[in-house]
């Protein structure tokens, strides 16, 4: 297993190098002059030029790249212009917010989509099947920012049942002592039920927005793979052996059907991380997505680079996790590695 992990990590290295290069080039191509930004209003040409030199922006691109990479190797992702903070520190402090939201969205989505997919697969062509298809397709057809806005409009503004879309915690609560960075978990560890409920309330709408978006791919994949597995010969054998429907569906069909679903989950997760960018903007969520958008709009290189790199690393780790999970379920993969 360890060998497989190492092998996978090795395989990811070229991609990561590609990401670093592409990000670097892309951010350099962004319009806007950080030097002019730093120099502030009313700066003279000379002042701008001097700041440009300080930032090393007067050097040719290859040299800037070398400098960037060497900084990066020391864990230095630079400083964000818009917030003035070191990028690495900010990403670390914001990552749990995004991760908590995305994971909760994913979990909610899985809890709804997987049973829905199974239900649809066990009666293909039925009303349930069609309803499932239409509902999930409608979900994935909604732009997340629109869903988010509509949810806020109804549940907060009109009905008043949701808390203000103001980040991770109501104003009058203070964050639980940081252990995992996930408020839900940290507040439980701190045995602070009040904070737990408060942070859960904040999470519901944005997580629902993400979950609605993620329903379709998961439900579709569950349905498809469940359908394939239910039609497979070993399920027929299991049926012919008189095994109870429960055993057939759970032990025989479901575990096998989960394999492609897990792969899909990985894709969906990375997809959600992208969608997060918009959701965080709508819900004022202090995550890395909103951070990156602000930075990009402001032509602020360092956070964009840092964000993309973090996401790329997360993506690699996620795929690794999926492979490991896959291996746990499927003995064939285990042996091959």
């Amino acid at each position, binding site marked *: 297993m360890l060998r497989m992990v190492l092998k996978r990590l090795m395989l990811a290295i070229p991609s990561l190098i590609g990401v670093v290069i592409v990000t670097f080039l892309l951010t350099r191509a962004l319009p806007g002059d950080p030097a002019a930004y730093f120099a502030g209003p009313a700066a003279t040409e000379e002042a701008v030029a001097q700041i440009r030199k300080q930032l090393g922006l007067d050097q040719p691109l290859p040299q800037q790249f070398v400098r960037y990479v060497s900084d990066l190797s020391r864990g230095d992702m630079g400083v964000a212009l818009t917030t*003035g903070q070191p990028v690495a520190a900010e990403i670390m402090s914001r990552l749990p917010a995004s991760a908590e939201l995305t994971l909760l969205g994913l979990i909610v989505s899985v809890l709804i989509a997987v049973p829905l997919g199974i239900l649809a697969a066990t009666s293909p062509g039925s009303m349930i099947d069609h309803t499932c298809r239409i509902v999930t397709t409608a979900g994935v057809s909604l732009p997340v920012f629109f869903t988010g806005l509509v949810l806020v409009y109804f549940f907060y503004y009109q*009905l*008043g049942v949701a808390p203000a879309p*103001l980040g991770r915690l109501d104003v009058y609560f203070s964050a639980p002592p940081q252990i995992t960075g996930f408020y839900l978990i940290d507040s439980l560890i701190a045995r602070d039920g009040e904070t737990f409920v408060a942070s859960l309330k904040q999470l519901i709408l944005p997580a629902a927005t993400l979950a609605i978006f993620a329903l379709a791919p998961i439900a579709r994949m569950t349905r498809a793979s469940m359908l394939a597995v239910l039609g497979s010969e070993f399920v027929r054998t299991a049926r012919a052996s008189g095994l109870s429907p429960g055993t057939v569906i759970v032990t025989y069909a479901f575990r096998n059907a989960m394999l492609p679903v897990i792969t899909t989950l990985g894709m969906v997760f990375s997809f959600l991380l992208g969608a997060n960018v918009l959701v965080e903007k709508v819900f004022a969520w*202090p995550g890395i997505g909103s951070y990156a958008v602000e930075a990009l709009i402001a032509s602020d290189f360092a956070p964009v680079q840092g964000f993309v790199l973090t996401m790329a690393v997360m993506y690699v780790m996620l795929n690794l996790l999926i492979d490991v999970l896959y291996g746990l379920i499927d003995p064939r993969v285990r042996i091959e590695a």
Partner: protein
Amino acid sequence: MKRRTFLKSLSAASAASALPIPAVWSSAKAQARQETLLVVSESGPNNVDIHGVGTNVPGYEVSWNCYDRLISHEMKTLPNGTQYYDRDKFKMELAEDMNVGDMSATFKLRKDAKFQDGTPVTAKDVKWSLDRAVSVGGFPTFQMGAGSLTKREQFVVVDDHTVRVDFIKKDRLTIPDLAVIVPCIINSGLVQKHATEKDPWGLEYTKLNTVGGGAYKMTKWQPGAEVILERNDDWKLGPQPKVRRIIWRMVPSAGNRRALLERGDADISYELPNKDFVELREAGKLSIVSTPFSNGCQYIGMNVTKPPFDNLKVRQAVAYAIPYQKIMDAALYGLAKPLYGSGLDKVKDAAWPVAHNYNTDIAKAKQLLAEAGYPNGFETSISFDLGFATINEPLCVLVQESLAQIGIKAEINKVTGANWRTELNKKTMPLYTNVFSGWLDYPEYFFIWCYHGRNSIFNTMGYQSKEMDAFIDGAGDAATAGNAAAYETNVKGFLDLAFTDIPRIPIFQPLSNVAMQKNVSGYQYWFHRRLDYRSLVKG
């Protein structure tokens, strides 16, 4: 039917369960709520030291509230009841006495003034802070320069509690410039502990920490999300502020900010779209205070260095083609002070901002354009800062539509916020809209920045006119000399010239709008248009 009742009961149930929670679970929280002011705004600071490199406007607000200055302004009450800073009346802050001489001003410091760490404020700190302002470069140094404060030698420690500021020339802006945000007094001893060879002014430290003696201190800052300021109970330079704690949250979506206000979750917000202010005012649940920007206006600028806008007739044609009223109605919801259609050929008073005499007149615009040699119009582009899209976008769309009627096809060019300054700096945009306002509320101050031939960054049109320069310089000199008549002539001179030459077309004077809960009072309008927490009262 069923669904409706279900929804109803749902909302009722959750309202019942949602609302009393803080009260039931902890009375401390309800108490805290009374003494806490929740401010929401679109963006937050990137640096809490105004001397820092590239500190943004929200950063100024922290600086204003967490540091003291030698002097400040008195308040006056406008006819509508708004507290408005009095440009001409100064109030002592750290200084207990100011003595302005011919070529210097002497400040006696208050003996009881202490920094937040308990060390007393001394003349050394004042000198160090002012030295820093003129030395670090960038915006603070530039701002100091606007009041002819450029050299460290100008700041002299007379004794522990006396500081003298020498003038390098007579300038009537020198004293007002000491009351802006920049010349804040910093705890030099504490900062120097964190200074390094590379960073002699300790900018890295003050970027993240408020190191002054102001009425508030920043206790928590999560960039882009939240700033928390706590009252400094040892602050002695004025009456103790009523609000113990300021929670300032960044809420990028204007709709959410409005919703927060309406539902009573947020106490105060500025930076809302005009439409929301109009509606909130009509709804009457909140107090809305609208005050015109001092010394500022939004305008359409034209690049006069290049055809076609180097042609006066083209500029005048554009000025006649602007759909002023439509902009007032649709983009601003009437929440602005019009600066057009004065009905006067010459300006009446030596005051700024003041209306010009253009009005929407498409026939005249067409005629002027034909006279200029563009009977069929031309193609150009109109740019705006995406950061202020709520007003800029409809404005530009309306202008675009109107210009199309006289044959000018303008493509709309959205420029992202950070890039806007770069673009302005290049001075290549043919047609654009922008806002400029000066902290120091003097007409010549505005015109030096925006029209003078020394071509500052804000003279975005690249406008050059000897005649204009003469008027502006003349006004400055007259003001310094105290020659009221000459001052008025010169001011009227540059105003009229600016309108006849029309390199930029003022459209309106924006309003600074603040919405707050009815139980919040004590709002004061400052030249920097940010909040002064010291005067705010809740309950």
